């Protein structure tokens, strides 16, 4: 495996980074941002949509800040795990990502913007050639999707990052910057179908940081992850549930989000709201879990079968809610 050659740009500030990006855009040159590189570089080695220019954010110090309410895009996943200011559920989710070596390199921004994954896509060039390529990396052939054949308008590759559902449940806001200015949006609005589009980042735009509301400390919850091995593996399904207690024995507010099940993470607001009405402890959790199972539609492109992942979304939801029951005792 060899990386295709590219020009590496190493700006020392955000402004410089955005300026390089804008110049490359003007010159109609395609480029990628690289943060920790743990997702991008393996994909480059596999010649997956690699670009001739790569802008490294390693020296852009503005992106490194970490506070309880502010998480820079370049904060290492390992810092989240070790940090004492980060919400414990976020730290837990971070601690379950890949392996410690990868967490020491991988970043929050990189994890949020993780490329979607698929059995038919994450393969070597020779391998993909032998299946006549696929829609997500068609090498100019207009190839069909290999997961669901006979439709070439949608990519169904799976979003398998762990942080997004937790951050969604924490009501995080994501902040973007480009040479034309900055903008912000709820993280729940950031993701956009399909598996190729992935999110609302425009060309030349990057994630600078996330902010988390001050009341996050009052939110409790859990993140549950399904995978074959307790290291390395991407989530085959992941469920974050967070709640705010009303001081008595039922939650005041409840949020549920999932990952690893579709091309973008899912935020299940209506299901959570429905469960809150007439809260009835164990029974409510059971029906909430069932409604999450129904809400997600995985496809056959990862290690486990879609029907199993879907059913496990139910089990994971139930388990993530375990804290709700303890509190009500």
């Amino acid at each position, binding site marked *: *495996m*060899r990386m295709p*050659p590219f020009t590496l740009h190493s700006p020392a500030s955000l402004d410089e980074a955005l300026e390089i990006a804008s110049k490359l855009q003007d010159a109609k040159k395609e480029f990628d941002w690289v943060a920790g590189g743990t997702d991008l570089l393996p994909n480059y080695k596999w010649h997956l949509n690699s670009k001739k220019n790569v802008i490294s954010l390693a020296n852009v110090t503005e992106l490194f800040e970490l506070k309880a309410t502010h998480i820079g895009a370049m904060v290492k996943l390992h810092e989240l795990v070790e940090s004492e200011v980060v919400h414990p559920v976020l730290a837990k989710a971070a601690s379950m990502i890949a392996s410690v070596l990868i967490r020491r390199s991988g970043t929050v921004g990189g994890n949020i913007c993780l490329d979607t994954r698929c*059995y*038919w896509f994450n*393969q*070597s060039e*020779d*391998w993909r*050639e*032998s*299946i006549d390529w696929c829609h997500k990396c068609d090498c100019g052939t207009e190839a069909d999707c290999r997961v669901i054949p006979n439709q070439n308008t949608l990519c169904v590759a799976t979003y398998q990052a762990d942080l997004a559902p937790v951050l969604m449940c924490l009501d995080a806001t994501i902040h973007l910057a480009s040479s034309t200015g900055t903008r912000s949006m709820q993280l729940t609005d950031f993701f956009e179908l399909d598996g190729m589009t992935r999110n609302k980042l425009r060309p030349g735009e990057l994630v600078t940081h996330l902010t988390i509301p001050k009341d996050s400390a009052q939110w409790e919850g859990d993140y549950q992850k*399904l995978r*074959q*091995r*307790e*290291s*390395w*593996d991407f989530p085959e399904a992941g469920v974050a549930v967070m709640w705010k207690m009303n001081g008595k024995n039922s939650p005041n507010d409840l949020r549920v989000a999932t990952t690893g099940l579709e091309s973008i993470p899912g935020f299940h607001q209506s299901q959570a709201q429905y469960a809150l009405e007439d809260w009835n402890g164990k029974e409510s959790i059971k029906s909430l879990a069932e409604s999450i199972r129904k809400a997600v539609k995985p496809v056959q492109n990862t*290690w*486990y*079968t879609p029907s*199993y992942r879907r*059913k*496990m979304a139910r*089990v994971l939801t139930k388990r993530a809610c375990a804290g709700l029951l303890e509190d009500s005792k």
Partner: protein
Amino acid sequence: MAEKKDMVGYRQQPGKLPFSRPGSGGKKSFSEPRDESMIPASQGGEKEQPWGSHRHDELLSGRVIGKPTSLIDSKWKVTGQAHYGDDIRLPGELIGKIVRSPHHYAKVLSIDATKALELPGVVAISTGADASQKFGVLPVTKDEHAMAVETVRHVGDIVACVAAENEVTALEAIRLIDVEYEVLESIHDMKDGLNDSEKPIHDRGKYHIGEANIQKRVFQEFGDVNGIQDNAIASHKSNWYFGGVNHAATEPHAAVAHWDPSGRLTLYTPQQVPHYVHRALADVLEIPMHQINVHRTFVGGGFGGKSDPFPHEMCAAILARKSGRPVRITFDREEVYWLNRGRHPSHIEMNLHADSEGRLCGIETDALIDGGAFASFGHVTTYYNGVLHTAPYEIGAFHYTGARVWTNKPASGAMRGHGAVNSRCAVEVGIDDLSEQLSVDPITFRLANLLPPHSATITGFRVTSIGMRECLERVKEASGWDEKFRQMPLGKGIGIGCGFFISGSGLPIHWDPNKFPHATVHLKIDMDGGVTVHTGAADIGQGSDTVVAQSVAEVLGLPLDMIRVRSRDTDTSPVDLGSYSSRVTFMNANAAISAAMKIRQELIDATVIITDAPAKKLVIGDRRIFRKDDPAVGVSYLEALHKAQEEKGALVASGAYRTPPMGRAHKGAAAGLAPAYSFSAYVAEVEVDPETGQTKVQEVWAAHDCGKALNPLSVKGQIIGSCHMGMGQVLSEEMRYGRNGHLMNPDLLDYKIPSIHEMPNVTPIIVESNDPEGPFGAKEAGEGPLLPILPAVCNAVYDAIGIRTHNLPITPDKMFKAIEKKCKLLSIDDPLDLTSPSLEYSELQSTLEARAKNHAQRDIDRRLNENIEAYHNGALFGKDPTIPPDEVDENWTVSVLPSKEYLSNPRLAGKAWLHTERRHRGDD
């Protein structure tokens, strides 16, 4: 003056050695007392010998054998100075890259390399036209070419290769080579391989079986097969599927070829079997063997995956010849999967029967194995799937049908536990089920059905030492079996599994065993006193260099530092069959001992001349040869050596090992023959999550009978490593093929090798049965330890949740499906409401316990009594133990051809016998 203390933690530096000058005889002029605890009782020491004395007892000097010893090459590895295949850098090297087929099965119509040749930096391009000769690991099934000649047989099959100045250029060049294919209809399901095909994947001429893709078929019937149905009161029937697994050794394959100015080829390659590559290179390159030197580099893990001669090794040699420069080819991980040679995906139908006495009155096995595109070791694998489960139990009848078919996948081959692993798993799970049907304890059932030491199996294997009973008893005790089995709560379970494996294949592949030894070791000692050992045994990380060095050191009473092993070059090493079939310790250590005994004799003779002591009274200690009865009388090793060298200079000696004549005469009788067999019993404790189907192995107690642990550290390492590898196969590892036949996970992220988090706590238990023919009593410990972990886990899963799985790996999704099915059957909503199985003994339990007790005494008598009578399988069923039952009993059959009656209703693999070989159907 203060007494000089032994240095602790001393870092070895040149010129400052932790011992006084080598060979000097030590610091003292008098010998140190020998380590009595390491000297057997039969030689006047303190070491107990519950299994009796051994022919090598008098050679034990108490130095290194039986002591935990770090491998002699370990410092090279941990300091990064070990050179593996890809570490070889020769001046002026070119990089070789391979053009691979994108099609499962196709005719190669044309190859146009014009554009690639024009690319600056490309030096040579080679295609199948450059090497028309076939090769293959077994002489009977040579079916591989260096590069495709006319046909490509799987995605990733080699079409052409390129040598260029650097990797980038080579990679660019392979994409510039235009290959025109005519795509043929491929087959992927091994069941389809049994049918006639328009264009079988290989054509074996008059030996071809019908027009099908059957590479090998086996039929075997032994014992009272017709009586099975009448005798059985309990039967187990199961249909297994085992996914294919890959060795996934840390080091990917690599080869460097160089033609030197004398016109000789040196191939540097991490190989388990340099000798076969040596032969195959001579075939393919059409040059005599003496023009080739195969240099085995350090090997970063083999497990069977580096034991065939490989096409990329041929490619490197061909490109180097074409370009006149050294060529290096290194695989990336995906290419390792294209080469494969992993364990065969298999459909195994396993029927076991028990009679009213709780005896195994019949084993009926049918194994269809998926060979992929080439034969590799498949001929042997097809036999091993049957014959290697005829022990350690005494059985009333054995019926085996096996077939290996070609499909358009990367070739399957030999992998740790070759051919025995899958069917062993099926047998051991079957015994668990039979025990449950009979309401007896599965360990008791096994203890009451074991063959005794020095017996013959139903197919005529000569079994010598058997430590199976001790293995079972010790894991039973260590695991707290009686308090746990069938008594743990839902989701927690414990299970037992056993294993039986060859310790060295009895027949060499390439020659008549009477014409040439299996292993040869040369020793040379010059004035410096250091011993140079030449052996062809390939150290693949298992520690073969160390075990040979240990054997020599022990016999000559020298520290390990004085032994240097030269095992790399076929130019200087005696021919060796290589590191497979768990033969190295048994055969090479035996050869090393016999060579060392010759040197030892010369040293003793010289001592007799110097000291005038009678040779019988002399013993060898730490670099001193002295009188047993008066240690003050003696000479240093170096003195004796120099005396012995007076007339002839350096001492040289050669020792060899060959297996004794063994086995019976039926077709296929040689498959599975070995000079000794290893035995093992594991207990695994698991947790199964009923809600997710996830299985986690918590504890393993692993007892293995290795005859004698020459190096207990290595034996324990092998046991723990085997647990890891076997656990991968049973829980998560699988080469998964997608709906269009593509291998979906040719990488280590999606090929799920268990991580440290999945690894249970393993308690290795070494059982030493002191094999009469093994070196110092040793047998193998490299492959056998893998076998029991699979069934132990499967049986523990059943104990935990009451579900028998017959589909490996037991990934959570499969397990969850089975749980759902069971819940539905029992009309249970929540899987947490399931119950795990329980056990109430039947009357048979006490019968079996009594029999086990008698047999335990029988076994002790047989192993300590030197004049024992023959014992043939069948005695347990009332036959005369001294004669093979088939010689006296009409109902006791030996047959290797199916009857018409069988063919009217064959089992799955048995269908292979519906075809007629071309030579027998009157074709021209």
